[in-house]
């Protein structure tokens, strides 16, 4: 199916549906094709409606469908992402015990109301957009950032919320180091302790990155150089050749 975007009427309807964190009514899928509520996004590529086990797979599916060349155009169009969230609602709005879990609006829609914290337009928290941006920027290494399609992981929030220096969220060497530190390849999951707050955790890593950011331009460092700047033995307890 061609990618579409919600028009102003569609956005109002979808925002109404998102007004509660859970819903007893099914997602309003009729908005997807109804010309009264959505329009062609004029972006090449066909999407297949399917369920995803991981947010990484979701990001891969969208990036593959539109092609790398078109991803920046997609990222610039705020009205595409609510439509995509709805299109993949089976993954982004899981149904449990007869109720659909939606969570905060920012997971599905890009708001512009800066006065209301809940609606503050943290685009990185949008489930589909976050997946696509991470895959677009970091390819396979985005696995370490992303969890289930309906989750915004602690690693994702810590690193992509740009709490540390503007370039951190976009630094390939950093994500390569994060992947090296926290991704358990054989088990295909994030290592235990990574999401905690103790020694070697991502929270601890962010604290150190704040210090490194004062002295170094992070994107100018290779992953190996950055890795060597991290204190031993705290960040040396894992094999360097993962």
């Amino acid at each position, binding site marked *: 199916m061609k990618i579409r975007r919600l028009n102003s009427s569609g956005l109002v309807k979808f925002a109404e549906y998102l007004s509660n964190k859970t819903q007893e009514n099914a997602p309003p899928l009729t908005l997807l094709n109804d010309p009264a509520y959505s329009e062609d996004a*004029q972006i090449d590529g066909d999407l297949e409606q399917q369920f995803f086990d991981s947010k990484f797979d979701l990001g891969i599916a969208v990036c593959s469908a539109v092609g790398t060349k078109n991803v920046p155009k997609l990222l610039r*169009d705020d009205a595409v992402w609510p439509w995509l969230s709805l299109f993949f609602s089976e993954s982004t709005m899981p149904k449990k015990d007869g109720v659909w879990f939606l969570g905060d609006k920012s997971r599905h829609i890009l708001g512009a109301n*800066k006065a209301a914290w809940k609606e503050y337009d943290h685009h990185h928290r949008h489930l589909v957009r976050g997946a696509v941006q991470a895959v677009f920027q970091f390819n396979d290494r985005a696995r370490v950032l992303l969890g289930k399609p309906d989750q915004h992981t602690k690693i994702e929030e810590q690193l992509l919320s740009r709490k540390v220096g503007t370039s951190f969220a976009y630094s390939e060497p950093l994500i390569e180091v994060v992947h090296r530190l926290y991704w358990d390849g054989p088990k295909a999951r994030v290592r235990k302790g990574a999401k905690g707050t103790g020694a070697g955790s991502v929270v601890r890593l962010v604290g150190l990155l704040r210090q490194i950011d004062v002295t170094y*331009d992070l994107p100018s460092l290779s992953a190996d150089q950055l890795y060597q700047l991290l204190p031993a033995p705290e960040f040396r307890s894992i094999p360097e050749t993962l």
Partner: protein
Amino acid sequence: MRINVKRQFNYTERIKIPKKLVKLRVWHVDGAPPRIVVDDFGLNQISVPHEAEEWLGANVVLEANRHTTSSFQRVEVGLVSDIAGRSGAQYSGTLEQFDSDENIAFTIKVVSARYGRLLAEAKNIRSGDDGAEKHELLKVQEHDLGQEPWRLTWEDGFGPIIQVNKRLSDRDNFLTRDAFMQGAALPTALRMVLLRLLMDPVERETSWGSEWLRFAATFAAGEAPEGDEDGRVDWIDAERWVNEVLTGFCDRFSYTDRINDAVAAPLED
């Protein structure tokens, strides 16, 4: 154990570049990513404690960031030695990762070639700061134009305005999403503005006039042709320069390709 290091210690002698020394301008025309021109990175006006060889061989980096939309763009502009000697604008480019010029924060870094050490930095320069000028080059207004779809008109003190016929049902998308109308209207409007400016020395001296000419020059190999003692520009020279600008402008925004894509899209359905 948590280690807290106070950020004010400066053992590496990195320099804070005062924002007021940085002269940058951001331009935005509806339907296209914003353009940025850095007239001065301010590097010639600061005293540096670093070795000359390290300083002159360091890379100048420009980063643009908008927190709320997770938009980021990083440009390695060149070496300090190259940039400091540039006449005219020290950098011009397109912010392709951004949809508008709203709320973009810029960081300028001077990075040593040795191990990525920061030698100097100016942070959080925003459009509208003292060191950065923000301009809306082209206003778009709705107007009842009968059967005329759009018209270029002029406002004293501001310059050109595109009036879009309020009778058009899709007027909101007229210049932002419709590839046909963008390709038809924007190059034509640019040509009309530039030819008017080159023919009118009075308007050329206005602030909006000089801003338009600086914007246009970023798409051409050189500045606009100068007029004679009365300020009049030779028509042939004017047309040649405007064509050069239009070629660069249309190449940058790929208007023909975008129209072809729009034509092809329905056929693939």
